[in-house]
């Protein structure tokens, strides 16, 4: 019951954020966005025709009225139909989100898991060559552009100049094997780049935790290293780790996949978003922006609940 109350309160607290996002998206995408009047008109329109279309589109209304109309649509989740394909926006999202998740999840899990593991090794051997090697590798990962990593892995694995093992682009999930064939190159590129940042971040968090008093206490009571790492260090570094993971969820669902999907021609949300940007497809952009904002509120909520699980000092109040 207490948890439920907490969730409701948190969701209510997220309203200003969603409102702010809708305001920004309205201002940038709709209010200052591309003028649709002439697209809908034939050649040589008369002034009356222009005025009529403008009033149909609501362009003659004052700012607040238009924003409130926009808000009403958002609240009712009425995003309408795509302007380019005339498909319902909700069905487009329902079709493409699973694809994006299938594309993003392996890289996300591997990037964080390997990041934590490498960080633990580096932190344990801090100052020794293995630490320097791992951190050097991380620095390289951080210095390579995502796009370059993508092209690099593509050349290496998919081109006739490389190993030529995997498809160059496209997407197919009909069988697990096909899925693996198509997901490998994007995943490798994601992991390679994400690992740099993740390893550095997690190592800093873990090293910080290693210098705490309670770690020394545990050592003074003969706790062996493995247990020390798990019980004292990893468990206590969970808050920054959980925060990082939770808040990267909305990003990987939408923005992170945008480059991958448009590069490899994968039919996910990112690709749809990119196409919508290019064609100025407002209903889709509107839906994506609001979806991201809601995901951020949910991520915040999940992070808070995780804090409570990993740290008894945090109370859900």
């Amino acid at each position, binding site marked *: 019951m207490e948890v439920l109350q907490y969730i409701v*309160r948190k969701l*209510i*607290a997220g309203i200003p954020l969603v409102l702010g996002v809708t305001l920004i998206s309205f201002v940038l995408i709709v209010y200052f966005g591309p003028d649709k009047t002439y697209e809908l008109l034939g050649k040589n329109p008369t002034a009356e025709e222009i005025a009529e279309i403008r009033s149909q589109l609501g362009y003659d209304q004052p700012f607040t009225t238009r924003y409130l109309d926009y808000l009403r649509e958002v609240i009712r989740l009425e995003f309408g139909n795509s302007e380019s394909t005339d498909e319902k926006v909700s069905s487009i999202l329902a079709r493409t989100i699973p694809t994006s998740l299938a594309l993003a999840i392996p890289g996300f899990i591997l990037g964080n898991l390997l990041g934590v593991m490498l960080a633990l090794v580096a932190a344990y051997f801090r100052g020794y060559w293995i630490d320097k090697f791992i951190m050097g590798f991380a620095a390289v990962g951080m210095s390579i552009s995502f796009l370059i990593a993508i092209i690099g892995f593509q050349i290496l694995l998919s081109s006739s100049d490389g190993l030529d093992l995997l498809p160059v682009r496209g997407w197919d999930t009909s069988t697990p094997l096909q899925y693996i064939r198509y997901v490998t190159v994007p995943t490798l590129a994601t992991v390679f780049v994400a690992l740099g940042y993740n390893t550095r971040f997690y190592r800093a968090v873990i090293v910080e935790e290693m210098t705490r008093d309670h770690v020394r206490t545990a050592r003074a009571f003969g706790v062996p290293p493995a247990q020390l790492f798990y019980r004292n260090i990893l468990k206590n570094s969970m808050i920054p780790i959980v925060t990082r993971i939770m808040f990267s969820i909305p990003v990987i669902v939408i923005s992170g996949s945008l480059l991958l999907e448009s590069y490899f021609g994968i039919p996910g949300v990112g690709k749809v978003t990119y196409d919508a940007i290019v064609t100025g497809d407002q209903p889709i952009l509107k839906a994506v922006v609001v979806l991201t904002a809601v995901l951020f509120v949910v991520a915040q909520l999940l992070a808070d609940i995780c804090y409570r699980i990993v740290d008894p000092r945090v109370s859900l*109040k």
Partner: protein
Amino acid sequence: MNPTPESSDSVLLQVRDLKKYFPVRGGWFRGVQQQLKAVDGISFALHSGRTLGLVGESGCGKSTLGRALLNLHPPTAGDVLLDGLPLAGLSRQALFARRRDMQIIFQDPFASLSPRRTVAQIVREPLDVHRLGTQRERRRRVEELLGVVGLRSNALNRYPHEFSGGQRQRIGIARALALKPRFIVADEPVSALDVSVQSQVLNLIGKLQAELGIAFLFISHDLAVIRHISDEVAVMYLGKFVEHAPAEKIFAAPKHPYTKALLSSIPVPDPANKSPRMVLEGDVPSPMNPPAGCPFHPRCPIATERCRIEVPALRESQTDSEHVVGCYLAT
């Protein structure tokens, strides 16, 4: 009602029923606020050139009281009168002018000096802000101040991190003296220092008081230090004074059971001293959630039913009008 013998015309600082409450917010969109009563109805008078030692354990509100007097934490209620004039309700300019009369020295010699400014800049700042004297006079005054606190003038262009804790504390004192204040709050000024340095700084403060006639509110948790420096002593517990008397009287014949326990708790650096110790039960309650009645009753060895219900007011002791105590059972 006041434990100082002099006539009231030399009263520098008069404090009446001072309160400082901090709101404790539950979080976003939660109107329900709890009050942390850090200072809860304190009254006293301080005469020019005298030192009031304020002792208490951590969280009793002694630092907050010091800051509330200087309006660094604006008081929630009550009056602070300097020379008979209230500080509350002053305009910004008027308060700014009054700041020349009252200054503060801090506990932490590392946090109390801005790390990127030189000693000269730090000590000069009060003079610059209050536009006292010409540039040359200010420079001379800074050199003079460093001399007063026992630093050489080659310290002028150095940075705080180049000094030891004791020296940094001297720099902080020089800054506080720059405006020639008549009242200084010294908030645990020697607690962070080693014993051998602590005595140097204590001597400096004692000297300043004797030579410049500055009144001090000397806050400390260390009773030995308090005894060494104070003319009168107030003991604070959970936001309230529980006892207030001239130093020799409070140390010779403490009346409040908390003062008695406090005094008997100090480890004495003398192996020959084997006086029996009065050890209190339990810990200081949280100021967020103070007990009803006398705040000390849950730990008091002699508490009665009345102590659990009513809050005892500070009153003159039956035997001595200079000795004020907040306990029903004290004589």
